[in-house]
């Protein structure tokens, strides 16, 4: 049995405070005054299965953390909500008023009394399980990740293949990132070329966080933020704004995890909700950045990085996602309208990486063509910045490690003015953004590459080649950039110069269909028939369903005198695509030769 003696000291102290409070102020009770605040602002996360470390659903729950709640609401640590009130309201704002904070302080000072039962509002109602009902498709990470018990924050990526055999339109995504108490945020990318899975040591194993550069088959810029932060509910896209998912797509889920004190097994799930209504409007994610300006001397407490971007088309701004690492202190984004008036898009005066998130506007913000979007980020690289990951502070530049920094502002915009006359306004945005990024940093690989792609699509192939060449100089091993350069060179009859970059592409990614195909074409143009056969054979092996590859291989075989094989390939091509005219003509010509 217990050898301890009881003491009443603390009990009587609380009673004393309570008595004093009653004299100083009208009595504030849980049931009458505090429960409505807690239920509305805290309980959605502070309940079983959610991100809060303990529940705040009853008087007993709240009382047993009362002083804590008074502290963290007064210091604005809770509820976690980074942006200040600005010119535009965000959806799901979670912020207490000064009066609400004062009410909580008074209640705790008065001894946290319960109050009259009749004053208690109904307990908040929450939907258990999937928030939008059973998803149409649930993806589960194949192998769990084990989060260590201690240490610094961890970033882990899961590759989730999407098992669909026809294109589906996604109206909502619910990310269930495992035990929500362990997850600061989750960010999901659509990997249309399945390029991220190459980073896994074995299929399904996932990989540690790093900068991910995803490639897309055609002009198909990222369109949707797929983001989870504590307390966020799945967002249902309005009709016409669904996300397209094609067969052969991976979703890459990046989790920012905090060790809990014991090892944890992390195996996230993602629920997809489909719609029959295909997309009729196409949002686009714009990244304004100035990483090159990030060169912060050790000890510098007030280092500003700015950039701006002038919108080439009218857009509706739907959501915004500012991003810096541990040295960021004050993140501001504004819009200067053509009229000259300036609006605050978002202002985070006390940046805290662990509460970063995508912020969606309650109503779309119309920004006309000519609007200048400006980012102004401040960094503190002094020892006084407690979050500084380097002791003592060291010079910091841009990069993807925690000890590096970033200056990124992502915007989800819905461009206006799609039409036969104007073409696709996303191309204009992509071009303007790439050109602006190159002003900041002529050596930005992605901007060079993307600008080249837009120019090529517009028919300015020679100009495109200059930017592709810069991209390849910046990343000589990059298979996709080398392939694009080679393809552009073939297009202007410079096959001789196309061979080297295409060989580089094939060498660095031996399973790259397009590069083998293009190299086959280039070699054929140069009269290297053996090389042509070799490359097109490789292309057909990699993509047996590609009619053009079979047709071209057949044609090359015929040229080489392998008539029987040639006939087989041409017939294969026509079986896949009976409308390939040239293959039909070649087959007819071949039959004349054979007879």
């Amino acid at each position, binding site marked *: 049995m217990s050898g301890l003696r009881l003491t009443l000291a603390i009990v009587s102290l609380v009673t004393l405070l309570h008595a004093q409070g009653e004299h100083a102020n009208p009595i504030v009770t849980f049931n009458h005054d505090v429960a409505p605040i807690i239920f509305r602002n805290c309980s959605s996360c502070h309940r079983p299965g959610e991100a809060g470390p303990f529940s705040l659903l009853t008087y007993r729950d709240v009382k047993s953390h009362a*002083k804590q709640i008074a502290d963290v609401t007064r210091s604005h640590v809770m509820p976690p909500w980074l942006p200040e009130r600005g010119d535009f309201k965000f959806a799901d704002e979670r912020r207490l008023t000064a009066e609400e904070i004062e009410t909580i302080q008074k209640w705790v000072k008065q001894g946290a009394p319960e109050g009259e039962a009749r004053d208690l509002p109904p307990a908040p109602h929450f939907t258990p399980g999937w928030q939008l009902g059973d998803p149409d498709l649930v993806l589960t990470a194949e192998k769990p990740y084990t989060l260590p018990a201690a240490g610094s924050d961890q970033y882990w990526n899961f590759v989730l293949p999407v098992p669909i055999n026809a294109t589906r339109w996604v109206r909502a995504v619910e990310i269930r990132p495992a035990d929500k108490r362990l997850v600061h945020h989750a960010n999901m990318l659509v990997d249309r070329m399945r390029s991220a899975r190459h980073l896994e040591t074995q299929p399904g194993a996932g990989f540690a966080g790093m900068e991910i550069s995803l*490639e897309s088959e055609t002009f198909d810029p990222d369109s949707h933020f797929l983001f989870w932060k504590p307390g966020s509910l799945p967002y249902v896209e309005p009709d016409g704004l669904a996300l397209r998912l094609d067969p052969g797509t991976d979703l890459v889920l990046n989790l920012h995890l905090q060790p809990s*004190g014991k090892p944890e097994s992390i195996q996230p799930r993602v629920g997809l909700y489909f719609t029959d209504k295909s997309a009729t409007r196409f949002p686009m994610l714009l990244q304004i950045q100035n990483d090159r300006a990030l060169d912060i001397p050790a000890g510098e407490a007030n280092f500003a990085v700015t950039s701006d971007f002038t919108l080439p088309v009218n857009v509706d701004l739907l959501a915004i996602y500012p991003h810096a690492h541990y040295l960021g202190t004050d993140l501001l984004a504004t819009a200067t309208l053509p009229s000259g008036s300036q609006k605050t898009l978002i202002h985070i005066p006390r940046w805290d990486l662990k509460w970063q998130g995508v912020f969606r506007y309650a109503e779309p913000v119309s920004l006309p063509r000519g609007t200048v979007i400006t980012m102004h980020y401040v960094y503190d690289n002094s020892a006084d910045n*407690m*979050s500084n990951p380097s002791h003592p502070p060291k010079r910091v530049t841009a990069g993807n490690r925690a000890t590096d920094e970033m200056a990124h502002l992502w915007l989800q915009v819905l461009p206006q003015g799609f039409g036969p006359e104007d073409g696709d306004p996303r191309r204009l945005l992509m071009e303007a953004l790439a050109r602006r990024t190159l002003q900041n940093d002529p050596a930005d690989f992605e901007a060079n590459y993307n600008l080249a792609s837009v120019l090529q699509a517009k028919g300015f192939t020679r100009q495109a080649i200059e930017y592709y060449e810069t991209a390849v100089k910046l990343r000589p091993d990059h298979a996709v950039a080398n392939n*694009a350069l080679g*393809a552009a060179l073939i297009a202007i009859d410079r096959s001789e110069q196309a061979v080297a970059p295409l060989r580089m592409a094939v060498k660095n990614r031996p399973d790259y269909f397009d590069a083998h195909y293009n190299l086959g074409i280039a070699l054929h143009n140069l009269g290297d028939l053996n090389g042509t056969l070799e490359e097109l054979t490789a292309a057909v092996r990699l993509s047996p369903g590609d009619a053009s590859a079979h047709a071209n291989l057949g044609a090359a075989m015929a040229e080489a005198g392998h008539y029987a094989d040639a006939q087989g390939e041409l017939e294969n091509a026509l079986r896949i695509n009976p409308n390939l005219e040239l293959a039909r003509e070649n087959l007819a010509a071949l039959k004349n030769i054979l007879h």
Partner: protein
Amino acid sequence: MGLMGRDAAMRFLAGFAFVCLGVLNSAAQSRVTELAQPDPIATAHGKPVVLIFVRSDCPISRKYAPEIQQLATKYKDRATFWLVFPSRDDSVDIVDKHVREFRYNIAALRDPSHELVRRAQVNITPEAAVFDAQGNLRYHGRIDDLYISFGRSRSAATEHDLDDALSSVVAGMKVDRPSAPAVGCYIADTK
């Protein structure tokens, strides 16, 4: 025969940048401890006694588990460690489960009456108290300075107050800083 042309394959790139941080840790072997309730200070057996006040649902308290266990292991033969649970809500079953889950190899006590809280002069979980072999309170306060306030932490601790105090006490030396305010959950909330 001519080969069919094909549109140059176009690729557009976009990427989010992610940060990658180092991994550390190893989890200690767990041992279920009996929830006997001796007076830990009176039964010191000539060794200094360390009380670590924790709470099963306090996030900062939970996160310190590996650090607490590491210190207990470091001073295994020179000091006696006790985990003390002052919250009434931390029942015997909850404490038992918590100790196993967090792989503690330290005996646990419940202190719902806050008798030990008072003797150790602590008011936060997690917070530590060090008594010398004679039962004199020599240090009470934070384990280290990892947390600046609730919601704000350093990337790593720069001062290891408990470790410093304990090394002085086991060496029979004066503790330079006999108390330092802890950051975490208020024990007063548990009354």
